[in-house]
């Protein structure tokens, strides 16, 4: 349960409102938004993380659907509104998490395999054949990696007894969590809609980025029968109306009107509607996406090409995505493993007690390096140590690590797209760290902007559902809702930036090849 920020000074007035469901990796949340994009109420429930073996991560999809119904009902009750006040419901979800279920009974045939799960490692290598991990990159924009849904479907068909036959007979449905929720909301076994949106489909390794359709050749190469696949729809349109489950009573007839993968929803919630607009979400790890308009740009710099969003029958908007494995997690490591600070926020206090990093650079390649290097043989280093270095310098190096890693992604984006990040919109827990945000502006040599709503992911889903149902007329109205809460402007001279960047890159080189096969 979460208390929504409410104020007595301004009431939220009369409806209608938009409900946004955020089906995330650790919890499901429902947030009710008003027309100004302000939060009216929130309800949240965590679900179990199931670890059957090292490297395997599963979710119980039945539990998730139960929680989804509870949090939607909870948020509506807390807001004190009825279905007449809810204009539409929008969905955003953890991406790539894969589920197969029985069309006739509505029962999952296996736990959902979560995006973090690495059980398809060997399968992905095998699927790469003599080409390697870029075998399907031109069509799908993605490397063959354990994250993506396609190989997970193949694993289930290979490992659950009798499943392939049932799938080929047309009894089995595949979906990422958006499909599972929409199918259940719109009636389940009684005519539920089996659909997914382009952003979620673009993370399966099965969709052709250019035609926005399932790629038959790749589906057959990976071993996914076409009968199981949902229909690919846009991110903002009415997929159906609420009919199913315990919500049938409470919300009957409310349109289900958007679906977006969580990072794409954040891009949408940050109103990055123009080419070159970028957002970066700072959590345990970091995901940065840049809008590349109607061009699906192939990456030669270790980024992923993905669909940003598609509104109804308008042209799709593409994005380049870069992910950093360890950002907030490094601060947690300093707190939990090193004990140098007692709360995450104290890293700023410690780092602020010195003027600079004292010559130390910290590359947190704890599980290898992600974008733009993709080196699994790398491990973390602290470079440039001398006797002069104190824990405060290390704290500074910890924050700088997040900034430099962001710069490396921004540079890769520029290289691939030719578009320079002119301003970076940020969200996530680490935006409370002022020193980090200033350092980010300094090393990017671009302003860093924090919006007033921290819940950009849920807001993105609400925006898309609102656009689909005429709650907001167009994206300009959404831009008008966007409010700047803070802005950091660059204050580092070019010479310092270049020198420091060079030293950072040198430290990165020191991490590579640490593991030997």
């Amino acid at each position, binding site marked *: 349960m979460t208390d929504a920020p409410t104020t*007595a000074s301004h009431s939220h007035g009369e409806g209608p409102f938009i409900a946004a469901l955020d089906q995330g990796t650790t919890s499901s949340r429902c947030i009710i938004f008003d027309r100004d994009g302000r939060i009216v109420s929130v309800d949240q429930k965590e679900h179990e993380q199931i670890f059957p073996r090292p490297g395997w991560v599963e979710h119980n999809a039945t539990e998730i659907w139960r929680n989804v119904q509870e949090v939607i009902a909870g948020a509506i009750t807390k807001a004190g509104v009825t279905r007449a006040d809810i204009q539409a419901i929008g969905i955003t979800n953890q991406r790539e998490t894969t589920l197969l279920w029985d069309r006739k009974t509505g029962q999952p045939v296996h736990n959902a395999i979560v995006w973090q799960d690495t059980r398809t490692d060997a399968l992905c290598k095998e699927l790469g054949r003599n080409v390697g991990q870029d075998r399907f990159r031109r069509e799908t924009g993605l490397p063959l990696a354990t994250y993506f849904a396609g190989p997970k479907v193949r694993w289930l068909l290979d490992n659950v007894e009798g499943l392939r036959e049932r799938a080929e007979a047309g009894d089995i449905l595949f979906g990422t969590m958006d499909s599972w929720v929409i199918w259940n909301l719109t009636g389940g076994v009684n005519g539920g809609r089996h659909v997914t949106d382009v952003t979620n489909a673009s993370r399966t390794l099965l969709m052709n980025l250019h035609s926005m359709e399932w790629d038959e050749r790749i589906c057959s190469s990976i071993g996914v029968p076409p009968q199981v696949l949902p229909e690919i729809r846009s991110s903002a349109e009415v997929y159906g109306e609420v009919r199913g489950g315990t919500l049938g009573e409470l919300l009957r007839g409310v349109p289900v009107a958007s679906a977006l993968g969580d990072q794409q929803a954040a891009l949408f919630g940050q109103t990055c509607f123009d080419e070159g607009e970028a957002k970066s979400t700072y959590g345990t790890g970091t995901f940065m996406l840049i809008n590349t308009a109607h061009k699906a740009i192939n990456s030669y710099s270790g980024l992923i090409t993905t669909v940003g969003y598609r509104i109804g029958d308008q042209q799709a908007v593409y994005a380049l995505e870069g992910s950093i494995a360890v950002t907030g997690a490094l601060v947690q490591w300093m707190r939990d493993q090193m004990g140098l600070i007692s709360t995450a926020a104290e890293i700023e206090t410690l780092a602020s007690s010195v003027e600079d990093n004292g010559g130390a650079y910290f590359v947190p390649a704890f599980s290898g390096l992600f974008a733009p290097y993709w080196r699994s043989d790398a491990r973390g280093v602290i470079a440039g140590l001398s006797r002069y270095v104190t824990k405060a310098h290390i704290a500074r190096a910890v924050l700088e690590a997040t900034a430099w890693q962001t710069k490396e992604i921004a540079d890769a984006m520029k290289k691939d797209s030719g578009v320079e990040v002119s301003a970076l919109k940020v969200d996530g827990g680490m935006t409370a760290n002022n020193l980090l945000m200033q350092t980010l502006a300094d090393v990017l040599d671009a302003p860093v902007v924090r919006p007033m709503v921290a819940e950009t992911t849920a807001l993105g889903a609400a925006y898309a559902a609102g656009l689909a149902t005429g709650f907001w007329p167009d994206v300009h109205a959404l831009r008008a809702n966007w409010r700047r*809460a803070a802005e950091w402007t660059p204050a580092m001279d070019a010479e310092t930036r270049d020198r420091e960047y060079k030293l950072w890159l040198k430290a990165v080189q020191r991490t590579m090849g640490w593991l030997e096969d």
Partner: protein
Amino acid sequence: MARNIQSLERAAAMLRLLAGGERRLGLSDIASSLGLAKGTAHGILRTLHEEGFVEQDPASGRYQLGAELLRLGNSYLDVHELRSRALVWTDDLARSSGESAYLGVLHQHGVLIVHHVFRPDDSRQVLEVGAMQPLHSTALGKVLSAYDPVAHSEALEAERKPYTARTVSSAEDFEAVLDLTRARGYAADIEETWEGVASVAAPIHDRRHMPVGAVGVTGAVERVCRAGELRPELVAAVRDCARAVSRDLGAGRF
């Protein structure tokens, strides 16, 4: 040189003795180690026990250091922790009030701005985190002076510079303003620091009801005030925000 207080010296010696290892000590061990009569030692130990500085094992009756000593060392609230707890609430305050929101703490005889949320319009604004404001004339400063005894004495000792014709400078008038602040639960600054600018602020308390900071909004006097008075809905929004942050820090409802 003034004479020291003997019982405090003895209490300090006892704490040092108990801190000198993992052992628990009985009354007679403590008394003999410090060369005290048992009755004297017991009186001091009982006082320390009531304050939570020592604990007594119920089974053996032996003494050890108390949890309160640990809390003493950790009671300081990190300002960055404060900002991170206040973030969502101050965003909502700026949004609902339409003015810029500030979070301030006492620092070197003034108010240090530790968090600033822009006024929610598209105008060009500069982040003021790290700036200092005077204690005696701003709403944030008055709140700190009214609730934090250290801020109070610093504000009284300092020269209270008149920034505008409306600045309250005399010690007597200043004390009256602080009394009013405590009675109302918020402080105002209507053109007392900057011409044309007004602000309102309320105190943030931690779980032990210690004043740890102040939160408020600042804006053009024409928007913040109506007929020369603060708009009541702004006062309510600021106080709601202060209560919400305090609740997040573990303070009970008040």
